[in-house]
């Protein structure tokens, strides 16, 4: 990125002091004792379709869950996160929760409007007015409505607290957000910023909005593309005014910028990105504590004192990235082959019972690793050098809590300026991670294949050699792996395979079954242990960012 925001010495000092005190607790201790409700949300998320109803319900959830968790949604089957129903069943079985089913918005308001203090009307003709309405809803403890829904709200005794009809007509997003900033920012939570991005145009999927409303967050989808000078400056200002080490929760707008720009800018300010905008039920989940006495236990495969001597083979370790709960976890095949799963470490305090669900459901072949680059999604090349040690320390503390001994880094700070080939890290950064994570087995790196490889005292730093996309033809994917084995002729050859989250394990297994006996899939921790002791890759580091 060409234009890096300047970092003031005072801000840097504030950040350093903040890091000393690490992660603030967010949730209360209980899961609530009052009545709980569950409701299905529809498939249609278009402004001209089902979005107004779903947006109203999600805002109701954010407000109704203040104090204790009361309302849980079953998102549709095609939603990004596929664990809503299994997690609901888990809450029922492990926590003894009982839920009353709600069928209509009217029923939802019948049961929960007593927690609501009013309504905010957004303007169907100005999409961004809904994003601002979410901010206003948090401040007023209100629900968001279109004008067609006003009679329903009035019938439930609710009164209008804001009306955006016509307010923003013809305005740019930059102007709308400046208006919202002037009106709401002083009252908003400075520990979280909600990025209500993702889809654009007629579509919006505001799964995270309940959490943002619940915590009185500011909502935006301001562009972090430096070419969008006004919105970029606005985003940088917000980032700079958040408390140090805050969470940017949600996701960037696919129509305005790219993920790499978004995470790079957040990392410049030492902020942690926590995706996605569709993350469901977080106002509920964050209030459910761990079971009494529960401790996170990973399924370690490496036994102390045992030697792991590799044969003359190609060893493959599979990692699914892009957040637990997206894609394959609930799909067929889990447990059939060794598989490593990137853990969204902040869920340990953002949604502890939700993370416990994944640990409780893990099979012996499911191995967890810490991610991503820091205590949240960050790019180390974009993090100010003075902050990186504290970032690594905080991530390491989370790894200890979660019983993780492999860490993963991804850095696309230089990615888009390199034709999509620079996922690499300079030695100074890799040194910092190894120095401050003394008990780890190793570090993996990349998203697409990357090219940084090293060994530190028998512990490897290995980049992905293959990215298995969900649409890749299976025969061609197998040919890719054979070709890689031919291009890397020394044995053992350590082939780290990134599986795109939408690829289910049955499919991965079919591809791997096409390979010959010279290939073996092993657990990630075994893979790293062998690679650290018997490396065949060449040491290589990336360049410092330009």
């Amino acid at each position: 990125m060409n234009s890096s925001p300047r970092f003031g010495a005072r801000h840097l000092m504030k950040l350093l002091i903040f890091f000393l005190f690490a992660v603030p607790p967010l949730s209360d201790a209980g899961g609530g004792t009052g009545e709980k409700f569950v409701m299905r949300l529809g498939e249609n998320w278009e402004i001209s379709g089902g979005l107004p109803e779903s947006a109203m319900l999600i805002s109701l959830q954010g407000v109704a869950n203040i104090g204790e968790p009361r309302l849980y949604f079953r998102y549709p089957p095609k939603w990004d996160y596929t664990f809503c129903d299994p997690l609901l069943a888990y809450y029922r079985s492990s926590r003894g929760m009982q839920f009353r089913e709600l069928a209509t918005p009217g029923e939802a308001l019948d049961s929960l409007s007593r927690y609501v203090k009013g309504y905010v009307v957004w303007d169907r003709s100005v999409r961004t007015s809904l994003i601002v309405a979410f901010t206003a809803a948090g401040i007023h403890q209100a629900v968001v409505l279109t004008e067609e829904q006003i009679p329903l709200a009035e019938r439930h005794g609710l009164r209008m607290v804001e009306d955006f009809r016509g307010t923003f007509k013809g305005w740019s997003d930059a102007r709308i957000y400046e208006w919202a900033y002037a009106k709401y920012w002083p009252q908003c939570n400075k520990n979280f910023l909600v990025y209500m991005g993702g889809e654009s145009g007629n579509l919006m999927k505001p799964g995270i909005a309940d959490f943002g409303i619940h915590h009185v967050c500011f909502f935006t989808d301001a562009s972090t593309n430096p070419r969008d000078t006004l919105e970029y400056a606005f985003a940088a200002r917000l980032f700079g005014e958040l408390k140090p080490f805050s969470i940017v929760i949600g996701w960037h707008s696919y129509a305005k910028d790219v993920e790499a720009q978004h995470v790079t800018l957040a990392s410049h300010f030492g902020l942690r990105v926590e995706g996605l905008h569709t993350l469901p039920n977080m106002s509920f989940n964050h209030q459910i504590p761990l079971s009494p006495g529960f401790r996170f236990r990973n399924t370690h495969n490496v036994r102390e004192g045992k030697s792991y001597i590799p044969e003359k083979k190609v060893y493959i370790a599979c990692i699914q990235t892009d957040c637990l709960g997206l894609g394959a976890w609930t799909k067929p095949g889990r447990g059939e082959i060794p598989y490593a799963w990137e853990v969204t470490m902040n869920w340990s305090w953002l949604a502890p019972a939700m993370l416990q669900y994944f640990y409780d459901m893990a099979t012996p072949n499911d191995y967890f690793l810490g991610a991503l680059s820091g205590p949240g999604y960050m790019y180390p090349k974009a993090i100010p050098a003075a902050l990186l040690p504290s970032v690594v320390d905080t991530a390491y503390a989370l790894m200890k809590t979660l019983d993780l001994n492999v860490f993963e880094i991804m850095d696309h700070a230089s990615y888009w300026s390199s034709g999509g080939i620079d996922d690499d890290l300079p030695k100074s950064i890799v040194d910092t991670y190894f120095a401050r994570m003394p008990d780890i087995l190793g570090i993996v790196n990349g998203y697409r294949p990357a090219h940084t490889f090293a060994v530190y005292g028998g512990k490897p730093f290995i980049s992905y050699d293959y990215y298995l996309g969900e649409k890749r033809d299976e025969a061609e994917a197998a040919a890719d792996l054979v070709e890689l084995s031919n291009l890397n002729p020394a044995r053992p050859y350590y082939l780290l395979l990134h599986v795109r989250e939408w690829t289910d394990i049955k499919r991965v297994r079919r591809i791997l079954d096409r390979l010959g006996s010279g290939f073996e899939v092993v657990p990630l921790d075994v893979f790293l242990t062998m690679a650290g002791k018997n490396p065949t890759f060449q040491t290589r580091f990336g360049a410092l960012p330009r």
Partner: protein
Amino acid sequence: MKSPVCMLLLFIVLFSGSLNSGHAQDAGPGCEGTWRFVQAGSTDIVTWGNTLPQVDISAAEGKVRVLHELLDRGSVAFADTFEFSPGRGEVTSVARSEIWPENWFMGVLSGAGDPRSVSGHWLEPEKSFRVVTRQTVRTSQGKTAVTTTRDYTLGPGGKTLTLSEKRSSRPSPVVLLFERKEPSH
């Protein structure tokens, strides 16, 4: 398309310096021209982002020039050129980019700064030719040599072009189908 290429093609068309002139005048148009990728009928490929391949073939002064481009919504995201004199041995140049355009999903980089040799010859005049490149690639275990044999074959009526690409490292060929891109008026 870059303007020098346009000028070259225009020159070829106008002044009959083309590959097909004087050889197979009744066989329809030859290989020259710009060829647009046809996904259906091609091997599944993986390029960076939304890029799609395009091939431009031209000839002048006894040399054949094959321009491979990756287009992202019409803009050239990557370009690579093979130029050879049919049947006259290898021409060696230096690879300039680290990008290995063959497969974005594999941990392979082009050996930037390393020599790359190109040779080519006709398999069937005006209808089919072969280009052989030898180059260095870099993988996690270091540098290794790859020989790629590309056969370009004109389809019936000169409307399609099939590129069969065989890499010494790969167990199966990659077959790409292209259709002729008609000049816009």
